[in-house]
């Protein structure tokens, strides 16, 4: 129960949620709700791992993990495009289409990943300790010591996404098509084309999240247990994050730490001077398993209350198909 270790591991496994959450933020900012994150993450995890299995040779025992991540992003991005076609062009209900995407992604990854769980592969992605930064007390060991290279990519993504959305011209366009597509169209933006792009981008990031699990956080393919509902947690985090990358990062890392704390709490014999009930009765662990999901609900309640109070909230056109020539909502 070393808090440093819990937070360090939390940042690592929170990176998965970070990618998925920021991806969904892009999609939702453009006005397209994509509930298929879980399915896209599964496809991503399966694709990344199977590429590594396929490219593992005796000369190259680690396979090509970067190629795997690329495959994960493309596969999940294509799946997201399917959602895009159905919701943007056919104007189908985004909720139902997202659910269908979840089924399709899960089914497809189970079928294509058949036998993959038995394939032993050791994807090798470097772990990096940053020379000077790791010496910072408290933060150094948590953020900059023995972290996967993907974690650092996550660090870079947070400010980049924030800057893009809030401070650049394309970011302004992104917000415009999610808030008021009719006005954006009148401004000369191609609403359909931009929405496709951000749906694809969101899918690619969800695929990266899946690949991060299967190649770096807990390497391997464990069918649906690979993601175990993290895609849905990411969708919850988007609401908590109020569609802001910094808040998304805070939520993702906090959830990562929580997942690790749940595992670690069953170790010691005493907790705060008392006998540790989770050590003496391992069945209490089932209650610990509920915590991430219960916390998602709590986090949602917090996010929804804030949104109500501050009159902030979802992009105004979220979930609504844009029909050219019809009056805006």
């Amino acid at each position, binding site marked *: 129960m070393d808090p440093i270790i819990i937070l360090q591991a939390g940042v690592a496994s929170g990176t998965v949620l970070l990618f998925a959450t920021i991806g969904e933020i892009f999609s939702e900012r453009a006005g397209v709700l994509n509930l298929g994150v879980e399915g896209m993450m599964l496809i991503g995890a399966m694709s990344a791992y199977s590429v590594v299995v396929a490219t593992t040779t005796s000369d190259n025992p680690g396979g090509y993990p970067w190629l795997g991540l690329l495959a994960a992003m493309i596969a999940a991005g294509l799946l997201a495009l399917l959602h895009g076609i159905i919701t943007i062009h056919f104007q189908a209900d985004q909720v139902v289409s997202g659910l269908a*995407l979840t089924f399709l992604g899960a089914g*497809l990854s189970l079928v294509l990943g058949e036998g993959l769980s038995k394939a032993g592969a050791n994807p090798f992605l470097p772990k990096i300790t940053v020379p000077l930064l790791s010496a910072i007390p408290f933060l150094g060991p948590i953020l900059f010591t023995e972290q996967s290279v993907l974690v650092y990519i996550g660090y870079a993504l947070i400010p980049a996404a924030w800057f893009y959305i809030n401070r650049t011209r394309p970011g302004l366009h992104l917000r415009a098509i999610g808030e008021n597509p009719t006005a954006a169209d009148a401004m000369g933006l191609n609403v359909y084309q931009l929405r496709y792009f951000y749906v694809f981008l969101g899918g690619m990031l969800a695929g990266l999240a899946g690949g991060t699990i299967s190649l770096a956080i807990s390497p391997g393919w464990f069918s649906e247990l690979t993601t175990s509902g993290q895609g849905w947690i990411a969708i919850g985090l988007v609401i908590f994050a109020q569609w802001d990358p910094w808040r998304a990062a805070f939520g993702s890392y906090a959830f990562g730490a929580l997942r690790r704390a749940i595992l670690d709490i069953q170790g010691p014999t005493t907790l705060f001077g008392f006998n540790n009930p989770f050590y003496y009765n391992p069945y209490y662990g089932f209650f610990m398993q509920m915590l991430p999901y219960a916390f998602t609900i709590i986090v949602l309640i917090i996010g929804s209350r804030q949104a*109500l109070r501050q009159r902030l909230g979802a992009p105004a056109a979220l979930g609504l198909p844009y029909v*050219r020539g019809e009056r805006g909502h």
Partner: protein
Amino acid sequence: MATTTAQKPGLPFTIKIEPRLNVPGWLGPAVSLGAIIVALILGAIVLSLVGGDPWAAYAHIARAAFGDLGVFSDTLVKATPLIFVGLACSLAFRMKLWNIGAEGQFYAGALGASAVVLIPIVPPEAPGWVTLPVMTIAGLVCGALWGFIPGWLKARLKVNEIITTLMLNYIIVALTNFFVFAVWSEGGFQMSKTFQKAAWLPRLADFAKQVTLFRGLTTHAGLILAVIAAVVVWYILYRSRWGYEIRLIGDNPRAAEYAGINIVRNTVLVMMTSGALAGLAGMSEIAGVVHRLQTSISPGYGFTGIIIAWLAKLNPLVVIFVSILFGGLILAGREIQPAGVPRLIQGIILFMLIASDVLMRYRVRIVRAGAEE
């Protein structure tokens, strides 16, 4: 997609896509059927791509699900919980409440019904006509309770019900596992003791003495309950004042609000009723099939319910038939490798269905050059 025309050079006609003004009655079923056929073809393509023999797989599904009276009876057993969860989803979806938690409410119902036997609330010597109704009520109440939480959160705090219902699924599965392993485990196995006979829903096979045809048939009384539930939900939705309110809120919440309909109360009530229906599914599965509480009692019935509701166009009576179809798919799908195939086909079917909806809203017309304009 407003009216668009595509004029290919050299073709003597134009293809026009224009909004439909009225939808002929036969179109809905025809489009659904077409969507299923296209989905099956796409599924076959995927199957053959991964090296399977799709036609053998489909022929196997048909034989293993509807081949003779015995397997058809097993199909009906699988269809029973599906009817309940299909109804649960149909009712909630009709109000545009996205209850994705039928799976969890199924578990809640199963847990509640099991508690009646395992605590025990009803003594083991009690006759079936006491035990079974108490179990039914327990399943109903627990399911409703598990639906109340997201319903209340949605109504009062505007918390997105899709995510809360989904998270509650994971929570109830962990809770069920806790009870199975830590409280009611029999000899350390991941299952409780077998229930006494009084807690079993009667099966057709129980009447084999009177009707020899019923010998070995596993269809149980839960099916009757499910069909009754379908008729009740149909009556509520299409013949009652409450159903009118539900449909109005679903179609136009603002109009409903102006009409003085209490949306907050209806949100909670519909979620609870939806949960109760899914809870009944759990109860009927526990009392009719498994006869004990164990882990993984559902192969994703609650999620299949979503597709069934959509395929039935939220019509409670159509839900019965669609459920039988999917019951067969699940029954036969158990033996099909790879294991993800039924889920994959379900996903494709749902995708095709929502994509085909565009045919309901738009018509494609082929106009000869010069015939118009």
